[in-house]
């Protein structure tokens, strides 16, 4: 509690939802402002320029369809990450899991002798399984041996990336594509139907929305969901309640990896209809999904909104590239800035400024190793009551 006479800053036990949303919006705004400075250097400065971008992105059915198209993988991966983060498992490997799903779908589409009507469902299942498996190694390492999951899941991303490259240059190289690094195009039965007039592969969207609802249901209404939340919020209480942390984490990651895998299926089956270079399949969706999940504070329903927002950012980035020749990397910068401002502002949520001119400046909180004197001994909440995602991974177990 620091006195800044005549204000008093005190610990806030639990910020309201509207405060959380408000601060998030402020963070996003700040990120946009800073990006605006960069954009200015590239010649995008006037209101007219911004107007052009907005118009192209949102002002036409095509534009909105593009936004939705970008939203789909973010939605799927984001929902998976939200679940993982809620269990305090830092899955940074969504990018690799997405690619794994894409590979599995491509494999099924190109090589599996499955009759036409079953092909697409099989592709989805294969993609889910592939994503799950790709995410299982970092999970097992953490659960069994205690290896920090951030770096291991990240390494899996790079391994997925080069594996895809190997496939498209090597064994799966398309016979009909001369000189290009793609596989053959998928058979027609493996093409996802689109919303007429757009390029939106709606089945994946349905899957995504279903998954969001499903995980919401899981978290709020099932035993497993309850266990996930307890584990993430207070691991000690979880031990008390007899919750098996290893089992819960594994299950969570199976779903999380699978969700990212589904995103990969959508991309290859709905947009490209072949397996391409990894950076063409995913424009960093796996990493951006982290921001989507963080913005939504781990709430799967909120992911629907936050993935739309970030999808909008991606789509407008494309528009800006075409219309104003702004390099598309600005999107990555903007997303990173949003995350920076988000976590930077989390402190704001923990404190509350009070106008207190009458009372004398309160003394600094004493540092003591003994129990505090009696009185509401435990004081306000020891940590932050803010985001469920505040805790850092357990580095002790490196």
């Amino acid at each position, binding site marked *: 509690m620091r006195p800044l006479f005549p204000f008093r800053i005190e610990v806030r036990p639990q910020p309201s939802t509207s405060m959380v949303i408000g601060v998030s919006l402020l963070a996003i705004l700040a990120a946009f402002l800073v990006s605006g400075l960069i954009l200015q250097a590239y010649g995008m400065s006037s209101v007219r320029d911004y107007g052009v971008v907005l118009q192209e992105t949102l002002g036409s059915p095509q534009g909105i369809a593009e936004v939705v198209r970008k939203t789909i993988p973010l939605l799927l991966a984001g929902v998976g990450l939200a679940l993982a983060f809620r269990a305090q498992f830092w899955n940074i490997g969504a990018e690799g899991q997405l690619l794994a799903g894409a590979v599995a779908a491509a494999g099924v589409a190109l090589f599996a002798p499955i009759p036409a009507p079953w092909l697409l469902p099989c592709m989805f299942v294969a993609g889910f399984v592939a994503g799950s498996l790709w995410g299982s190694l970092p999970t097992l390492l953490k659960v069994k041996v205690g290896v920090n999951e951030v770096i291991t899941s990240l390494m899996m991303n790079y391994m997925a990336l080069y594996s895809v490259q190997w496939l498209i240059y090597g064994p799966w190289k398309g016979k009909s594509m001369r000189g290009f690094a793609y596989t053959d195009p998928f058979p027609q039965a493996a093409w996802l139907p689109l919303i007429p007039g757009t390029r939106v592969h709606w089945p994946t969207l349905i899957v995504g929305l279903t998954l969001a609802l499903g995980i919401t249901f899981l978290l709020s209404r099932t035993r497993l969901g309850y266990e996930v939340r307890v584990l993430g919020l207070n691991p000690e209480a979880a031990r008390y309640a007899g919750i098996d942390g290893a089992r819960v984490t594994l299950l969570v990651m199976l779903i999380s990896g699978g969700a990212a895998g589904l995103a990969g299926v959508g991309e290859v089956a709905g947009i490209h209809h072949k397996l391409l270079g990894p950076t063409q399949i995913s424009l960093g969706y796996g990493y951006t999904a982290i921001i989507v999940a963080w913005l939504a504070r781990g709430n799967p329903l909120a992911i629907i909104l936050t993935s739309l927002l970030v999808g909008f950012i991606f789509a407008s980035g494309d528009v800006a590239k075409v219309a104003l020749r702004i390099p598309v*990397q600005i999107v990555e910068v903007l997303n990173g800035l949003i995350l920076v401002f988000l976590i930077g502002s989390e402190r704001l949520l923990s404190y509350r400024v009070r106008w207190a001119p009458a009372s004398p400046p309160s003394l600094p909180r004493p540092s003591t190793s003994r129990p505090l004197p009696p009185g509401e001994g435990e004081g306000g909440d020891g940590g932050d009551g803010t985001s469920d995602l505040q805790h850092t991974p357990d580095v002790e177990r*490196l």
Partner: protein
Amino acid sequence: MDPEFWLISTLSRALAFGTPLLWGALGEIYAERAGVINLGVEGMMILGAFFAFAVAQTTGHVGLGLLAAAAVGGVAALLHAFLAVTLRANQYVAGLALTMIGLGLAGLLGRGWEGTPLQQPLLDVSIPWLSSLPLLGPALFTGQSPLTYLGLLLAAILWWVLYHTRWGILLRSCGEAPAAADAAGVNVSLVRYLAVLFGGVMAGVAGGFLSVAYRPSWTEGMTAGMGWIAVAIAIFAAWDPLKAVGGAVLFGACYHLAFRWQGWVVPELLKLMPYALTIVVLALTAVVKERRWRGAPEALGLPYVRGER
């Protein structure tokens, strides 16, 4: 090909390939020893790579390029320190976010700089007397970049400072028991800021090495995850600067072999090697560690607030 020659050439190339990893790992070791984990190394490296190239290309002076790389790494690190130490935000996410920004920014700024090789790259040199030593000479002291030699020297100096000077005690105390350091009058925040700053500078130069000496050119994403591997090496080396040399050489050898075996194995699969090795190394470290000796600094990743003892 006789084994001695093979050993020497592998060691020599391993050292060369491992130099950026070494620089990055040394910086990260200091930051983590002070208690702050910096996952922004990848972003700082790539920014360093770009700025080193751009400045060197424009001014014709490689030295200025490297200085610019160091400066950029430092600025990014200050931001990370602000988030981690002052705002006490989640250090893992902060680093990730900075890496995203760094990668994006480097890609943004780097457009148009691709494809042209550097006019005046940093050339390899051999150390005159030492290079004629048997075995060690050709392996370590012949035909390496000055940054490699500097890196090895730094490793020794940093090791010595860490364990045998007053500063070292201060730094390590902030990472192990910030409450004890605070009670002894140490300004824990300041120490952490400086350590993170140092880490950023090292990461920047590591990136600069890539674009100015190693592959004197600029390509988007040219760090290809080396920043992460540097962080892993810091862990693998048990936060000891000298052991980091071993780790860097190990991974350097991995990169070298991946290059060497291109004739026999599919190149893309070879590229997987360093990343797979990272996972293996981390798993081994976790399994083998004896808590007291190999464990991370006890306060790593935890923001310090007086009064929460």
